[in-house]
């Protein structure tokens, strides 16, 4: 049986997100003035063969070693 996990990666608070700032400016120029801040990020959908006893730990490793850069980013895992 296979499982799924979704990983959301975003910049930590306090780290400037130039893409988010630019998107927010564009929205404001389009007349959507109420959107005062945008933070961008990315997500990953993982399909996992479910025969690993310590899946949680391995998922954490995958997130901290490769999918995110812990110096500047946080991640959140949603399983299923």
């Amino acid at each position, binding site marked *: 049986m296979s499982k799924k996990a979704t990983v959301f990666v975003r910049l930590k608070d*306090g*780290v*400037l997100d*130039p*893409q988010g700032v*630019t998107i927010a400016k564009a929205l404001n120029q389009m007349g959507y003035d109420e959107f005062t801040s945008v933070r961008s990020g990315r997500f990953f959908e993982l399909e996992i063969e479910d025969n690993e006893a310590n899946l949680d730990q391995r998922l954490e490793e995958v997130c901290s070693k*490769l*999918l995110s*850069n812990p*110096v*500047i980013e946080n991640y959140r895992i949603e399983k299923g």
Partner: protein
Amino acid sequence: MKVGVVTFPGSNCDYDAYSAIKHIMGEDATFLWHQSTDLEGSDLIMLPGGFSYGDYLRAGAIARFSPIMEKVIAFARSGGLVVGICNGFQVLTECGLLPGALMRNRHLRFSCKYVHLRVERTDTAFTGRCEDGEVLRIPIAHGEGNYFYHDDEVQQLEDNGQVLFRYCDASGRVTPEANPNGSVNNIAGIMNAGGNVLGMMPHPERAVELILGSTDGLKILESVRHALSYQSV
């Protein structure tokens, strides 16, 4: 001096680095393929500029897991000299040999131009042939060169004297206008606490002949050669 230039899929400054070492400096250079696990007796490892693995995920994030990088990391941890230029700098931060991270340029544009760099220290393996406070003219070419580190950690870097190059104007003043990408404290290049690993966004290997517009990059490469000749005595 024998220099190993690592080639990742997507590296595009590996031949520039090779040529600077081999043809301009007359030293021994060899390409090290990313799948190799043999540094071939190199005294200096150069991680060149380019777009390793297409910059997928984050610049340098995938290259750091190449087989050759295990050897490069072990080499660096045992005191071996490593220089990462541009994408090479990004690989060095991703693999933890250098602190901090390189983020998207603040203005979101790819920047390709000559910049001025102030040399902050001359008592290192990478700057020994420079003058105190010298201003070097060396080109940059990157979209993700915005050096970031949290405030207190940057202060630690500054206190340790790990900042070697800062973006400045032609007269050496470090100003916001001279900062091409938003790097904290105008940082263009840093070394590790051990003083044997350098990462810098500007390309010294592209400033090694007058026909290229500057020979200032040679001062950095010659500093390394000088440091290695001392080591071997």
